[in-house]
């Protein structure tokens, strides 16, 4: 018994809290992406590490320069800049010049986050802002896909990786086509097994369907992920691909191909679910997912580009404030309450 009164705090209730914190959730996403990252290095060699590091460096440096100084250097510690850099890196082609990856990371954080006021305030997914910027800025470099290096080529670094800043990659690299590119421009399908394992050409982190799904399940189990978004995206894509495939199976791929090819899984599990830029209401999450699914099929099937995941998510990001506004749940006891 203390006779002396403790100096009582007056912190408001509730004093209890559930365990999860925001930085922890961000770390979970990093853990979930770890296998995918390792797979990227396995498939594309050392160059993959360089590209990922460059984009992370660009993101972290920008965060440190602009955001951290005002807020006491702490915002770098919440891990979001690291996550943005990694996510961007995973969407880049293996042979991308490192300076472009760095620039992309900087734009992701600069245009995608800092100017909005930092974490939680941005309305577009920062990694995708960075990627959209890169794709619009360097369309050729961003659609030049270095081939798989294979097991014995671990130490390969694409010559194009090492282009001097602001300079073209110069030498004509060996390139290969992504499964989606093959489908769209040459009506060639890729075996589903390869898509699931990931030994196809493509962006660093998008090839291995299996690992992407595994990471998604981990996040779902940790309750870090709004499962409605990936589920609604994938179901929508499957349904519409199936319909198109029935109409003309030479031009339009089958549903499973659609789901496992390109950035579909990476985008729907790790990017569309970015809580900051997706609707907050459960109903909104469904609408968002269906919207992304419809747009991606529209762009892939009828657009000029083989892949549309990034644009679909960005477009639905733009619609998110509207979705949120019109899917506010009915407040308890209001509306049709009197039954």
């Amino acid at each position: 018994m203390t006779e002396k009164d403790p100096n009582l705090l007056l912190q408001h209730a509730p004093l209890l809290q559930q365990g999860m914190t925001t930085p922890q959730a961000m770390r979970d996403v990093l853990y979930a992406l770890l296998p995918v990252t390792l797979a990227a290095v396995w498939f594309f060699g050392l160059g993959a590490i360089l590209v990922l590091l460059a984009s992370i460096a660009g993101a972290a440096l920008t965060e440190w320069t602009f955001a951290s100084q005002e807020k006491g250097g702490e915002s770098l510690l919440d891990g979001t800049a690291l996550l943005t850099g990694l996510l961007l890196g995973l969407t880049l082609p293996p042979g991308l010049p490192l300076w472009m990856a760095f620039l992309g990371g900087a734009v992701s954080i600069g245009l995608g986050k800092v100017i909005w006021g930092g974490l939680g305030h941005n309305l577009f997914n920062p990694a995708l802002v960075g990627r959209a910027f890169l794709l619009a800025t360097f369309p050729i470099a961003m659609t030049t896909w270095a081939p798989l290096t294979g097991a014995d080529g671990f130490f390969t670094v694409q010559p194009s990786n090492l282009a001097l800043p602001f300079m073209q990659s110069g030498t004509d690299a060996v390139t290969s086509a992504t499964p989606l590119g093959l489908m769209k421009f040459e009506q060639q399908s890729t075996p589903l097994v390869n898509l699931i394992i990931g030994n196809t050409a493509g962006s660093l982190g998008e090839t291995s369907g299996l690992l992407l799904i595994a990471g998604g399940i981990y996040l779902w189990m940790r309750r870090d992920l709004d499962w409605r978004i990936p589920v609604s995206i994938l179901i929508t894509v499957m349904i519409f691909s199936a319909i198109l495939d029935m109409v003309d199976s030479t031009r339009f791929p089958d549903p499973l191909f659609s789901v496992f090819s390109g950035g579909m899984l990476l985008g729907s599990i790790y990017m569309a679910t970015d809580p900051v830029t997706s609707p907050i209401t459960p109903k909104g999450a469904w609408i968002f997912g269906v919207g992304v699914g419809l747009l991606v099929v529209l762009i892939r099937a009828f657009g000029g580009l083989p892949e549309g995941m990034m644009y679909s998510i960005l477009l639905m990001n733009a619609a998110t404030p509207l979705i949120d506004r019109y899917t506010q749940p009915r407040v308890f006891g209001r509306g049709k309450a009197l039954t």
Partner: protein
Amino acid sequence: MDNLFWIFISALLINNFVLAYFLGLCPFLGVSGKLDTAFRLGLATTFVLLITALCAWFLNTYVLIYAPYLDLISFIVVIASTVQFIEMLIKKFSPTLFRALGIFLPLITTNCAILFLAISATNRGYGLAEGLVFALGAGIGFTLAMVLLAGLREEAELSDVPALIKGTAMNLIIAGILSMAFMGFAGLFSST
């Protein structure tokens, strides 16, 4: 038919008036960023664009073949007076509609989107149907862009946007990112 469809899609998404041609930015930047206002402004603009397409077709077919040099002036005068006239009609017959849309009408007649529509419909040699579809696509695209931008702006109001960038700079950058997202529509339906 295909052609009409493509004209529509092109004006709606690929070459969106606001996001690809920078038309009608003044209302976007100047008029309040409120969603409701943006939507009604969009509807009113669509309406005026349709009237413009009609006027432009009429002028091109019956008047300007004799005096092509008067195109600019005649577009301005005819469109402005037609809209004025319709505004009066609306005011008289549907005060509700007038309250909802009417107040925007005088604002829109001097909008560059209107003039652009008339001029490019002329330059591209559009007929009546093509012109109307063009106007409809452009109008809906304009509304779409305005509504998306207004929603984003309202949301950005709640953000910690740094003081240096708040205001027009921020709005332009939002528009820039949206414009980047709309690049995904490039080539839509052109390969079919």
